[in-house]
């Protein structure tokens, strides 16, 4: 029997033979707390294992259970793993959103849905596949209590059947997901999955065009979230003191780190920990502890999001002025205030760059992929100690909490460098030192650590005015001299931050400047502009603040440069305005998105066309 419910007056072009292979997105609409996360991961992984580039994005509410969540899997044979706005294949499990979800689809999309929801009456221009989930789950899950969780696995089977996802791969993904310790749960879920598959095979005639076919584009790759990648980077950077206060979306960065450190950072001989991780009472304390530890010579870090960044403001100014290394991961979410805690944004660029009162500015690193989360986390620790200052690694909820394909991370080649620290032996040789004296011309003084057994080692650290010898001073000349040295140090950083990645398009009159997760949308948009409108666009992806000369060069070489901001107030463009002259600023255009979802290529393309008057 065919259950494709299409009203006869608006026939679909189904079964017409045209098919869409490995280039569509699947959205699963459920309520959170229903255990759908597992089913979604398994489905994503199975497609990944078939060699097809995928990305998974979880759009979840800020509560624990009962509110709508959407999980989107994008399969792209071209390797586009940014968000795609259009949904091609919907799995509608949530009665509350099902109608709206269906109404939002483009014509020609497909819907798997829970039969009692009766969605097929809503539209005649999409393909419907009703599934009686409750009926199917009962025989495969005798224990009524567990049915709510196991039920979701049925749609994996249904979708696998409809999209030709190989069941062997689904099984492999499922076993991996549950691990050896939960073999029984895996068994139960596999039963449900098969029930879904069999039902679909029995009941449906495939009429939508979407299909997965084996490729070879993911061999050797891993699937990981940015927070875990940052955590691994921190561990291999040799972090020793980690302080934190839970906040979405940064909590899982430290939670993942805790897991890794327990496994890999205990002395194999003594069993002793080579690190300390402390859950502080708030972010005032977590940054204070990180700075105290950095002052005493530890590689220290904390991780937080906007509200925590705001609380850290005063201490970060102390870190800047007293020149104390620390690494702060800012996994950005939507502000202001509590904002949308589970949505993504690049809304802290300005506030973080200039965090704290007085003349302060801080280096920021902008990873855009999990590979860079790992490598830049390592670089950030070196940088913080080299320049004796707090360094921010800026990621966002999209990068931090979503699952991404990545190449396996390379083992760090460079040895750990701890910056200018004088030991008792050094002091024996040179006799003494002045903490804030610019001996080497890079603005960075030499420091000693408390506990150094030498009469010349001590100095007094303070956030009040100080001279080269770290003595209290309110003198105008001392103050200016010190502030100028700090400015000089910031200039020196400019020569050592990660350089941008530049893609010049020949003959291009326009260019993009973007950072972080905007990368995926901008790269895809460049291709859209070329293939659909024959517009050439160059692209510079920033990897750090302060900016380097390459940014200015890039702007000069284009008539108009679109600065992509995932915030309302064009914060990245604002940072450029602070230091560029009028001629450069005149070439800049602002391209903004701030709705809280990961930026998608179509939004970028449409906005460029609008501003270009096309």
């Amino acid at each position, binding site marked *: 029997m065919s259950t494709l419910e299409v009203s006869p007056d608006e026939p679909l072009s189904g079964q017409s033979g045209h098919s869409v292979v490995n280039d569509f997105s699947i959205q699963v609409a459920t309520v959170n707390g229903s255990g759908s996360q597992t089913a979604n991961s398994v489905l994503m992984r199975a497609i990944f294992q078939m060699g097809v580039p995928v990305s998974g994005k979880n759009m979840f509410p800020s509560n624990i259970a009962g509110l709508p969540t959407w999980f989107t899997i994008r399969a792209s044979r071209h390797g586009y793993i940014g968000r795609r706005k259009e949904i091609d294949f919907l799995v509608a499990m949530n009665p509350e959103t099902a109608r709206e979800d269906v109404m939002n689809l483009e014509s020609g999309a497909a819907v798997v849905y829970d039969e009692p929801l009766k969605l097929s009456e809503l539209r005649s221009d999409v393909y419907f596949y009703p599934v009686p989930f409750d009926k199917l789950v009962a025989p495969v899950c005798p224990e009524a209590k567990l049915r709510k969780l196991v039920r979701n696995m049925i749609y994996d089977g249904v979708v696998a059947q409809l999209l030709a996802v190989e069941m062997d791969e689904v099984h492999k993904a499922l076993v991996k997901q549950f691990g050896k310790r939960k073999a029984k749960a895996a068994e139960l879920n596999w039963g449900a999955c098969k029930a879904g598959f069999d039902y679909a095979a029995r009941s449906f005639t495939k009429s939508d065009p979407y299909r997965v076919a084996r490729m070879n584009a993911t061999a*050797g*790759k*891993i699937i*990981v979230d940015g927070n875990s990648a940052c955590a*691994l980077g921190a561990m*291999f*950077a*040799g972090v*020793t*003191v980690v302080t934190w206060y839970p906040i979405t979306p940064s909590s899982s960065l430290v939670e993942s780190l805790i897991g*890794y450190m327990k*496994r*890999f*950072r205990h*002395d194999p001989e003594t069993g*002793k*920990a*080579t*690190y*300390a991780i*402390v859950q502080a*009472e*708030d972010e*005032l*304390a977590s*940054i*204070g*502890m*990180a*700075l*105290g*530890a950095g*002052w*005493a*010579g*530890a*590689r*220290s870090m904390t991780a937080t999001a906007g509200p925590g960044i705001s609380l850290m403001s*005063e201490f970060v100014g*102390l870190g800047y002025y007293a020149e104390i290394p620390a690494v702060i991961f800012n996994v950005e979410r939507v502000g202001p205030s509590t904002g949308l805690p589970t949505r993504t944004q690049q809304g802290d660029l300005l506030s973080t760059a200039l965090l704290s009162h007085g003349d302060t500015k801080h280096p920021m690193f902008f990873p855009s992929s999990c590979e860079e989360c790992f490598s830049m986390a390592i670089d950030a620790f070196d940088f913080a100690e080299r320049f004796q200052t707090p360094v921010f690694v800026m990621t966002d909820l999209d990068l931090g909490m979503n699952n991404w394909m990545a190449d*396996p991370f390379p*083992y760090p080649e460079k040895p*750990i460098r701890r910056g200018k620290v004088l030991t008792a032996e050094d002091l024996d040789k040179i006799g003494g030192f002045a903490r804030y004296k610019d001996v080497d011309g890079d603005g960075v003084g030499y420091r*000693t*650590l*408390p*506990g*150094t*057994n030498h*009469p010349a*080692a*001590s*100095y*007094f*650290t*303070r*956030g*009040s005015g100080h001279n080269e010898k770290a*003595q*209290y001073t309110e003198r105008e000349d001392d103050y200016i001299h010190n502030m100028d040295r700090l400015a000089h140090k910031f200039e020196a950083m400019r020569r050592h931050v990660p350089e941008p990645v530049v893609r010049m398009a020949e003959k291009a009159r326009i260019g993009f400047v973007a950072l972080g997760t905007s990368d995926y949308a901008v790269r895809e948009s460049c291709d859209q502009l070329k293939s659909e409108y024959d517009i050439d666009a160059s692209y510079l992806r920033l990897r750090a603040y302060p900016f380097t000369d390459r940014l200015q060069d890039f702007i000069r070489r284009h008539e108009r440069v679109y600065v992509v901001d995932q915030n309302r107030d064009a914060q990245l463009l604002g940072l450029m305005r602070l230091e560029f002259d009028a001629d450069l600023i005149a070439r800049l255009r602002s391209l903004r998105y701030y709705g809280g979802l990961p930026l998608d290529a179509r939004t970028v393309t449409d906005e460029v066309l609008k501003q270009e008057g096309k």
Partner: protein
Amino acid sequence: MSSTVTPPPRKMNRLGLEVLQYKGSKTTLCAGCGHNSVSERIVECFYELGVNPYTVAKFSGIGCSSKSPAYFLGLSHGFNSVHGRMPSIATGALLANATLLGIGVTGDGDTASIGIGQFMHLVRRNLPMIYVIENNGVYGLTKGQFSATADVGSTLKTGVHNELPPFDCCALALKWGATFVARSFSGDKRQLQAILKAAIAHHGLSVIDVISPCVTFNDHEGSTKSYAYMKEHEEVLQELDFVPAFEDITVEIPEGEVLDVQMHDGSHLRIRKLHRDFNPTDRLATLAALEDAEAKEEVLTGVLYVNTSKPTFLELLNLGDAPIATLPESKVRPPKAALDEAMDELR
């Protein structure tokens, strides 16, 4: 004639250091400020006990009191941080290097007003360090406003009355986890010395609330933190004697009268009860005594609580002996096999 006089032998402690080497830069606080006396006691105690100044780290927040770490132990590293948040700086530093001997100096505003949160969490963690509150009931540095330790009914020089009840930092500390709690008076040299020495020997958090009058803003009639008020209202609980580990003690201690507390480093604190029946190992009784004293407008001074067996925060972390801050790369960067293992799991 002068040629025949040999200079007197220089006085040195057991490390061969002179008292001068335990001093800091010249104080910039007001003459007569109680905080200066506390700095002097700190210098004497560290000198007399022969503490290696290179192993000491000094911490403070912001306030007149918090300036004072610049005025003692000039050979030790110091960190004058931000208002009310010295505990987190000290915590981080001691995590990094658990071999440091930490001493924090703070004010009543720094601790009981803006810093009450960090103070309570420091207490809860029983972080091994000395935490001295120089308590004058006002914000000295901002010119004399009430702090949260001001007593009900006390007045400012301007005549303003305080109507809110004070935080008793000792009561808070002993209720929530500090393992050595004492109150003293900056004018009582002997008592403060014994308490500071015991705190140096103690393994755990020592909270010492020192009534330390602000001669400029809170030493008038109507203040309950003035020299005159203390003269009238101080109730000294015990006579204290500190016997360092490096001094032999063989003297018999009479049963009952004297409580002999053996400190972590083998030194002894001898607590001789004065007229009151008071047991500094009984937390609840001490809390009751503090309540009682407050009602009677008495200021109890002496050792209020001592517990030498509770583990410290650092002990709970399972760290090795060497400071984690300076472990070599081979200890803090796991081998390639670890990365390979992590990557395999993600495939």
